[in-house]
């Protein structure tokens, strides 16, 4: 490979290039479906997009930083409550409070992350779980401030008064920007460093990289984008509940990433789409839809550990070979 080949190859692969040939049609399809769909379908699409962002933020930690978090919902919840409490307790106009939610989540990520990255592997996972449970308990118990288990409702018109379709379009714009930002981070020198520490922290440290510092930066970024998702979710429903920071949301995110495909940027997006569609449509046919989900998870773990994204890549390679 010549130096020029190397530069050309790198420009194509290592740089944060975006495949607009894929992104633009995908956005057009989502907009078209939203335009034609019923209001309930638009709401479902909004939830899918929000969860795609949440799962992608978790995917940054899991697939690239090799940090499995059992408490990522804490930052979804902090985003939702950061926004809600800024409006309700702080008197901040809701439009301005939109920025507060993600910042509160990032701050939470900084505080909890500084604690969690001191340990690795299962101990890291347990610390993330403990931090999320602390967050959930505070939201659940602190009635005077957070509304306790009943949450906070009726403080704003859901979706800022936008129609379901209008809000879905706004969420599409925000989520697209956030995903592009996450993609840019993954492909940047910072992303390369996050991957380096994830793959071999001892090698990274021997090269001069402070592993904990890199992990903390990744943790805060992931918390920020989970906070954006939580804020969008709170605006969608015009409410915030402690369950937003609960184990259920974390498990949803973990399942989405595994179904969608670990080690793939698109894994979180595909996972959210598949999971939410299953939850919506299979649950109408079979009451115990989680059984179907469990079987799918089993099949993926045993037969396709790279998830939907891995299967899709293999199919593309096969089709390419046929051509």
């Amino acid at each position: 490979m010549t130096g020029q080949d190397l530069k050309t190859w790198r420009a194509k692969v290592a740089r944060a290039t975006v495949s607009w040939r894929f992104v633009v049609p995908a956005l057009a399809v989502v907009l078209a479906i939203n335009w034609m769909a019923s209001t309930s379908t638009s709401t479902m699409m909004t939830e899918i997009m929000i969860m795609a962002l949440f799962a992608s933020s978790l995917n940054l930690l899991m697939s690239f930083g090799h940090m499995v978090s059992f408490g990522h919902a804490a930052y979804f919840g902090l985003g939702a409550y950061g926004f809600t409490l800024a409006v309700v307790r702080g008197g901040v106009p809701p439009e301005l409070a939109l920025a507060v939610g993600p910042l509160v989540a990032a701050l939470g990520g900084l505080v909890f992350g500084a604690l969690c990255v001191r340990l690795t592997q299962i101990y890291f996972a347990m610390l993330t779980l403990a931090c999320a449970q602390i967050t959930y308990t505070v939201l659940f118990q602190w009635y005077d401030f957070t509304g306790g288990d009943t949450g906070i409702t009726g403080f704003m018109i859901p979706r800022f008064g936008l129609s379901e379709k209008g809000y879905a379009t706004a969420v599409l714009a925000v989520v697209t920007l956030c995903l592009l930002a996450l993609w840019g981070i993954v492909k940047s020198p910072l992303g390369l460093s996050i991957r380096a520490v994830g793959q071999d922290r001892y090698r990274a440290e021997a090269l001069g990289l402070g592993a904990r510092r890199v992990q903390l930066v990744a943790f805060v970024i992931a918390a920020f984008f989970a906070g954006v998702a939580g804020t969008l979710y709170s605006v969608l429903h015009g409410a915030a509940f402690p369950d937003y920071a609960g184990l259920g949301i974390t498990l949803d995110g973990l399942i989405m990433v595994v179904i969608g495909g670990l080690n793939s940027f698109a894994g979180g997006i595909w996972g959210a789409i598949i999971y939410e569609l299953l939850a919506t449509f299979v649950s109408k046919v079979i009451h115990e839809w989680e059984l179907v989900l469990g079987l799918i998870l089993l099949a993926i773990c045993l037969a396709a550990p790279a998830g939907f994204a891995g299967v899709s890549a293999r199919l593309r390679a096969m089709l390419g070979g046929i051509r």
Partner: protein
Amino acid sequence: MQPILSARHIRKAYGAFIALKDISFDIPKGERHALIGPNGAGKSTFIACIAGQLPGVEGEMIFKGENILSLPPARLAKKGIGRTFQISRAFLHMSVLENMMAAYVIASGRWASLSDRVYDERIDRVHAMLETVGLADRAKDVVADLSLGDRKRLEFGMALAADPDLLLLDEPTAGMSIKERHFLMEMVAERVDATGKTLIFVEHDIDVVMKIARRVTVMVRGAILAQGSPEDIKANDAVQAVYLGGGHG
């Protein structure tokens, strides 16, 4: 010559087992120094002590006039200590190019950058280093698909990215063919001499040691048995009895 590294009464214990017993010696700047000895002699432990990868080490490790024993590996790398590992630790699921780029990005301190310019500014140096270690043709390949010899060469190149003053190579030729061993170590020696670096390497292949090292330390059971030039070591009766076994006498 002024020593670049001085070990003073280095002691490391794992519970009741003492891996290093009161190790003291100097490494002059620009020296190619081999650590040899039977398995369990403490060679890799000593390398790990210099690289800051072991807690609870007693004594003093003076590098460029500063005691570095309590410093973490990342700080030591920035101070000019580069290393490779006994078992290759390149980033397995990245390409060769990404590995080398990661090494250069980290060495530059621009690891937190979001700008592609960081890549652009380093791509020529990355390419030159891949050429030096003979891996430019394999730049696109994922490290997991490389042979052991290629991984070791990649790791050596990555260790050089930060332009370290002291290079620690822990069994750099383990698992390689004889031809690969000599190719790698001749390349290492050439590069080390050309850039004025100091080299400490652990090696079991005595032919490689005799050819590459200017000075040799023989360790046995956590202690120094003998030190000297390769010729002195070959002629040392104690070393012959304990390690070389007469084959090289």
